């Protein structure tokens, strides 16, 4: 118990120490020191995470409580960490992939000034800290702390090059859109506190029976709003493509591998609640699938290498939500993991390309990079195969698991999912072919400088490529071998509650094999078609029209939001500021002032100086007083009634 307490604190705090040291010492340290320190902290956490992973394997789930964060009346929110099969898996992914990306960054960011270099690593360490807090927290409030913390880091890192105002807008947009989701999350937490008086996972899940089904639906829906923001689902996804303004390793770490999967983690963590709210689950499945398809269509026509990957991420996240929606929690977590490998790989590969191309990101200006960058080429290709779901690469297993579960739920979900998978294959191989195949379309100067990236970049690529290739074997489906789904067995304690609630009717094996075969065939055909088509790509400057133009412009969603939300709010704010506040409220206040002024000016005239008037008033007043005196009782009663 004590060991695990210390270990968890170490895992979480070690990156924070890195943040403080690099952040505060940014003016005094050489780049080498900074890089060593930044990576070293994460490596430390990673090694400790491995150790913890084995401890969990032996001892199962444990909760380590440190101190009372908030303790008011009956509400107790301790600062405590819960380590179990799910969180131990996530901390491995976070620190492991995080470490590789740190290493990659040491080279990628080397042109920065030392102080900005240190700032970059400080932010990155802070991000790891927040993310660990998010997954290790033993209650929803601690999760929320991490939840907002990663949002902050995302904001800081997207706007890392703060001289560029477009980047700042992207950063702001990301933060604000996330906040919309956060509000949902927060309301769910309030709801829980209101109904159960606790937010600690163990208590909440144990006492879930006390909640009515309506309560559970509301809570899960509100939590899902949070997930929509953080994991970039419809309708809150637009920040993620813009977030590509940040440095590429940041996109790989935050906006592909870890932060955006927080929503999936949260739902997997609360799986029992979701299983008991079939309404919300159906909603999640629909949103997930819609996002998967919608983002895939946009990705078909994007020409910015990072934008394609960004929309692809949105789309893959959609698949994960589809998995959660149809009850395939293991599948979703599995896909989070494989996605972390291959999407990080793809982003880092893209970064390697961008680096070599001197910050050119338009794939129409690339081509033929295969011969200049062999390692990047191979690893990128492996990543593409993995995401396309070609067996035996990792993406095949995880995506297949989700789609199989979807088929059990409703075949329509399955067919649409397959359509999305084919689109994924199409745009990924379009990206690959336009970047690496054919002949170079950039300037001579660029061509002259093309080179393979240094080893700090290629080694993480190679490691990730290996993981993306073999990572799927931890979850071999029943069809191929019995009891070989290691991940399912590992996560079984987390999902046992949900499993007990629903009957599983597995698809029979021959049908499953047939489906796999057909899909794989379709994918392979798509690959061949795309390969042929886009390796011969020639740049032509034709204005696209019709539907293609709509896709190129991302369905005009940004414009739509601008028109229906941003503009009206802006108008309202201007109205409040210039009219309602100035003329309305302040006008009333000043009006009262003016009224007093005016009436005193009028009353002043009574003091005319005419003795006759004075006497008249005097006499009249005396008459009134006498009158009151006579009717003393009635009048005073009248007056006292007024006041």
């Amino acid at each position, binding site marked *: 118990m004590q060991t695990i307490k210390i270990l968890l604190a170490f895992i979480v705090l070690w990156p924070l120490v890195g943040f403080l040291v690099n952040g505060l010492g940014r003016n005094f340290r050489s780049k080498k020191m900074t890089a060593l320190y930044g990576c070293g902290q994460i490596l430390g956490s990673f090694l400790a995470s491995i150790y913890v992973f084995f401890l969990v394997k032996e001892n199962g789930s444990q909760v380590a409580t440190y101190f009372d964060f908030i303790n008011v009346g009956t509400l107790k929110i301790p600062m405590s960490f819960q380590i179990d099969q799910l969180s131990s898996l996530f901390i491995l992914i976070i620190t492991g992939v995080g470490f590789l990306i740190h290493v990659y960054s040491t080279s990628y960011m080397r042109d920065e000034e030392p102080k900005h270099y240190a700032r970059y690593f400080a932010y990155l360490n802070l991000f790891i800290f927040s993310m660990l807090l998010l997954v290790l927290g033993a209650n929803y409030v601690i999760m929320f702390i991490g939840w907002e913390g990663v949002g902050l880091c995302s904001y800081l890192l997207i706007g890392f090059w703060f001289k560029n105002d477009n980047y700042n807008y992207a950063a702001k947009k990301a933060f604000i859109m996330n906040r919309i989701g956060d509000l949902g999350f927060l309301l769910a937490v309030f709801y829980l506190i209101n109904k159960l008086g606790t937010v600690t996972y163990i208590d909440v899940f144990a006492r879930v029976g006390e909640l009515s089904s309506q309560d559970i639906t509301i809570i899960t829906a509100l939590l899902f709003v949070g997930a929509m923001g953080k994991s970039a689902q419809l309708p809150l996804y637009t920040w993620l493509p813009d977030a590509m303004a940040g440095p590429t390793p940041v996109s790989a770490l935050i906006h592909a591998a870890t932060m955006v999967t927080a929503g999936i983690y949260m739902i997997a963590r609360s799986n029992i609640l979701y299983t008991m709210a079939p309404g919300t689950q159906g909603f999640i499945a629909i949103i997930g699938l819609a996002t998967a398809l919608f983002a895939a269509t946009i990705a078909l026509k994007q020409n910015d290498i990072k934008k394609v990957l960004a929309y692809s991420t949105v789309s893959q996240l959609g698949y994960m939500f589809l998995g959660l929606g149809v009850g395939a929690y293991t599948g979703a977590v599995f896909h989070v993991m494989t996605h972390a490998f291959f999407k990080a790989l793809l982003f880092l590969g893209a970064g390697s390309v961008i680096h070599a191309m001197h910050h050119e990101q338009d794939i129409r200006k690339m081509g033929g990079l295969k011969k200049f960058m062999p390692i990047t080429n191979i690893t990128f290709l492996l990543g593409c195969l993995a995401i396309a779901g070609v067996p035996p690469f990792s993406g095949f297993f995880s995506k297949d698991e989700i789609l199989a579960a979807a088929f059990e739920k409703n075949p329509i979900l399955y067919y649409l999912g397959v359509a999305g998978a084919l689109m994924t294959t199409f745009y990924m191989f379009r990206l690959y072919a336009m970047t690496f195949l054919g002949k170079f379309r950039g300037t001579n100067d660029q061509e002259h400088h093309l080179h393979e990236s240094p080893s700090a970049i290629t080694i993480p690529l190679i490691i990730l490529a290996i993981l993306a290739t073999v990572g799927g074997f931890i979850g071999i489906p029943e069809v191929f071998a019995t009891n070989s789904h290691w991940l399912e067995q590992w996560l079984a304690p987390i999902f046992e509650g949900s499993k007990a609630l629903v009957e599983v009717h597995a698809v029979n094996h021959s049908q499953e094999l047939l489906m796999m075969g057909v899909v794989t065939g379709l994918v392979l055909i798509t690959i061949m078609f795309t390969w042929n088509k886009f390796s011969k790509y020639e740049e032509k400057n034709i204005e696209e029209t019709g539907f293609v133009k709509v896709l190129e412009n991302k369905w005009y969603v940004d414009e739509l939001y601008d028109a229906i939300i941003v503009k009206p709010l802006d108008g309202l704010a201007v109205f409040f500021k210039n009219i309602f506040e100035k003329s309305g409220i302040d006008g009333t*206040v000043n009006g009262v002032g003016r009224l007093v002024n005016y009436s005193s000016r009028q009353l002043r005239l009574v003091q005319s100086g005419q003795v006759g008037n004075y006497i008249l008033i005097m006499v009249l007043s005396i008459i009134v007083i006498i009158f009151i005196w006579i009717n003393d009782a009635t009048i005073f009663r009248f007056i006292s009634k007024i006041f």
Partner: protein
Amino acid sequence: MVPLLLIFIPVISGLLTFFLKNGNAAKNWSLVASVITLAVGLYGVFGSQNLSCNVEWLPVLGARFSVMLDGMGKMLTLLTAISFPIVFAATYNNQYKNTNAFYGLMLLTQAGLMGVFVAGDALLFYFFWELALIPVYFLCSIWGGEKRIAVTFKFFIYTFVGSLLMLVGILYLYNLTPNHTFAIESFYALKLTAAQQNIAFWLFFIAFAIKMPIFPLHTWQPDAYEQSPTSVTMILSGVMAKMGIFAVIRWLVPIFPLATEKFGSIIIILSVFGMLYASLIAIKQDDIKRLIAYSSIGHIGLMCAAIFAMKGIGLQGVMVQMFNHGINVIGLWIVANAIQQQLGTRKFSELGGLAQKAPILAILLMVMAFANIALPLTNAFVGEFLMFNGLFQYNIWLATIAGISIILAAVYTLNMVQKVFYGNTTTKTENATDITGNVQLILIVLVVVVIGFGIYPQPLINLTKDVVIAINP
């Protein structure tokens, strides 16, 4: 003993300051005096048992000089005691004409504030309430900006009308007490009928609502904050706004429980609307000071709503937030002051790119800005979390609507950060340098407090727990 010291150290040192002819001597002397007050305040919070004093004051009227410190009083006197040295130190380089008078009036304001927070007698409370207002009137109208005369006049009339209504209310209650006394205990012991409460409630509430301020009685505030010298603005928003909140908790809710329940919903709706309204206006501001002013209205609105929701958890949040908001908003003003002193402008349109020129200021502001939008692990999160919780228990929809202000707060705060610190430098900011040592030091202290109470808010909660239980068992 401690409450007496808290009042009389500022009074005496303030009066002495008027006689110091040398401006720098007055500055240093005030700083020293306020640090001594701080030491006494800390002693009051942590050490002393000797926390009340009750002597004859105006026997004819039945008014006694009764002062006491409970948890809430301790917290707010501590806030007052912390604020003044911080303000003095952070604005040490500001130049004023008649320095001695400026600092003398500042210290008198402090005495008034302290008195309000410790008073246990209604007449005494009223006396200090005015004592805190009058020096501020002179401070604003003598050392303020261009439009100071009109603005300060409005401010004074506004708050004074409120004060008079409160005086009427106090006298009304005084006449109802069996032995004609102003003591808070006998006010609490009054068994008022619903009709009596309905009248007296508004007499008090309007006074407090103006001070906080609550929509729609807020229009004096942005102007006054903008036109006052920044050190006065810090006190106005950091501490004086808390007077209103404090007074509602101490002098309104326990005395008029029926009326509180009856009018609570109206006030909450007003407050919640005010939050959104102020946040939206803040988005459109072009002046740092006005932006912070409107942001402050939004935050205060939440506190007011949480009080009238009358849930223990929300009240606890208000307690915590009173302290934390004071710290945060003072931090923001210090940044605004540093920018104005150095660059001579507060307009966003003329600023930009300061992060390149003043990185330390940028980092410190960043922490303050994120505290302003209640990011977790900053102090404001705990308070807002608890307050929203209370509001949520009162009514889900109101809490949801109020929650929109969380989003809007992010919008205007990040707008400010972006326009002031990011982007490219402008002609005004080209030659900017980083902040001076004293401002750095003060801001670092504030940042430590912000993060410290963000991670471990329990001391503040424990300090005020009893008061909450007393009001809302």
